[in-house]
């Protein structure tokens, strides 16, 4: 969760704590109606999720038009931060001297991975916002996976770097939260002050969907341990690991091509060109919104809901619960903005 949200939470906690004493008195005096009103007043503001689409994103062919991808990204970011200039959102997120990691998703292979042009557009804006090229690292688990989907692996400190965790390895120490205990990628722990998460919108055979929260499985050394029970509560617990939680500032979900069935691998017969991005600082709200998009596409294709198939993404609710508070899955508290 980013620093802005943490500050809001702290002030809300402080407010509620101050009310607690009064609450005890109110309960004693059967003033529950007033207590309920006070708690309502402490409900946080809505989480914004921006969906940006461009029907002409691929021009007349099937490959993405890089200038249109840049425009799409700018539009999404400006809407998310409510700012007018394309660089302004990035200047709010990062400042010169910071190391920025871009965690992509290359596991789906070609056809269903974070698009190289989208990532290039992100890097462009980061550099323009003052981040040195060598302080930007695009990464995922393995060099082979990155190269297979079109990234060029490079550790040259004079340019944007791109490599897998297999280059640096994992930290020696286990970090734990709830049901998970894992070693973290040294790319996150030693090469990132800020993490930008660039997942893909896809169906997942076990978890139901795999979007922002589940992309963090690529940060740990043992994701295979955390697939039982629909990846629940593991996905939420992984995202609570301190360095993941504190460093992640933004989620840009690549929905240029998305998958509604048969994931997490690429199944062209169950994929479609959504030609969009979903951007948010609330990964739970983003995942919830992405899930609804997938369900609508499934319905269009006369497929059962994920709930009917007994693989609804339960991990989303877990991520929003009182023990995690990674964001909200309450549609009344999610403001979806389409641009």
């Amino acid at each position, binding site marked *: 969760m980013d620093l802005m949200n943490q500050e809001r939470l702290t002030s809300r906690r402080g407010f509620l704590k101050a009310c607690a004493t009064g609450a005890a008195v109110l309960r004693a005096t059967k003033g529950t109606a007033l207590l309920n009103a006070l708690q309502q007043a402490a409900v946080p503001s809505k989480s914004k999720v921006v969906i940006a689409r461009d029907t002409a994103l691929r021009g007349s062919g099937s490959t993405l038009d890089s200038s249109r991808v840049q425009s799409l990204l700018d539009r999404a970011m400006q809407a998310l931060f409510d700012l007018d200039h394309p660089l302004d959102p990035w200047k709010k997120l990062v400042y010169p001297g910071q190391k920025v990691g871009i965690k992509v998703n290359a596991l789906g292979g070609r056809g269903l991975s974070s698009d190289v042009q989208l990532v290039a557009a992100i890097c462009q804006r980061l550099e323009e916002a003052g981040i040195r090229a060598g302080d930007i690292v695009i990464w995922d688990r393995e060099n082979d996976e990155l190269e297979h989907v079109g990234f060029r692996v490079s550790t040259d400190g004079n340019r944007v770097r791109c490599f897998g965790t297999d280059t640096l390895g994992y930290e020696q120490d286990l970090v734990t939260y709830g049901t998970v205990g894992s070693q973290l990628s040294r790319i996150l722990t030693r090469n990132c002050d800020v993490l930008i998460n660039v997942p893909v919108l896809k169906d997942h055979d076990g978890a139901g969907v795999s979007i922002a929260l589940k992309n963090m499985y690529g940060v740990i050394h043992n994701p295979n341990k955390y697939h039982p029970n629909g990846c629940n509560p593991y996905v939420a617990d992984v995202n609570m690991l301190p360095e993941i939680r504190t460093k992640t500032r933004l989620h840009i979900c690549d929905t240029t091509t998305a998958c509604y069935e048969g994931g997490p*691998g690429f199944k062209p017969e169950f994929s479609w060109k959504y030609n969009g991005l979903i951007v948010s600082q609330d990964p739970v709200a983003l995942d919830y919104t992405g899930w609804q998009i997938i369900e609508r596409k499934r319905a269009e294709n006369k497929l059962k809901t994920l709930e009917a198939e007994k693989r609804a993404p339960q991990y989303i609710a877990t991520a929003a619960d009182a023990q995690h508070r990674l964001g909200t899955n309450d549609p009344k508290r999610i403001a979806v903005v389409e641009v």
Partner: protein
Amino acid sequence: MSRLAIRGESRDSYQGMPSGMPKAPQNQGAFRRRVAAFDFYHGLPGINRLSTEGHRTGQVKAAARMKSCVCALLLIAACIGSAGCKHGSVTEAAFFPAANEVAGWAKTSATRTFAAADLWKYIDGGAEKYLKAGVQSASTSDYKFQDKLEAVADIYSMASADGAREILESEPAGDAKTPPLGDSARLHRQSLVFRQGPRVVQIVAYQEFPEAQQALLDLGRGIEKRLPR
């Protein structure tokens, strides 16, 4: 990217890279117990399994000696590729047609094979479905058709024909055609999947191409001929 286990190192990280075992012996036992609680067993039996009783010095030394012997054998056998993935054994590699064996198709990568326990390294959470259906191994290779179409061919070897049927039928057929191929087949616009005996073959094309379906079918037939009945 593989690293063979050498004396004193742990292969508990999935890449086979050293996980940073503390050098001081008095700290190693606690480390082993912590990692073993969360780690997945990799590697060869009897070599890399971390023991939660590692604080018993005599057993640790004997295990280390055994590791050295087996690792020496491994060096002789020359393991290639990333941990958990090896270039196809003679059997699996033989399933994939060579370059130009099927008209228009060139094989553009070496065959990689994943044991069941390591399948997640290739298809992540998608492995669960295959494991439940009894997968024993999976092999994959890349292909290219006339410089116009790139594709990947995966062959999953299941424990039984029932397992192969379970996999094929696990996904909706949609508007797939059902060409006469293997025991049962589905042909979509950009992909082909069929089963023959205990094997499931999936070929996925990355581009849309007018003649893609025929090209995929041709490659599928080329693989079918090589599969044992």
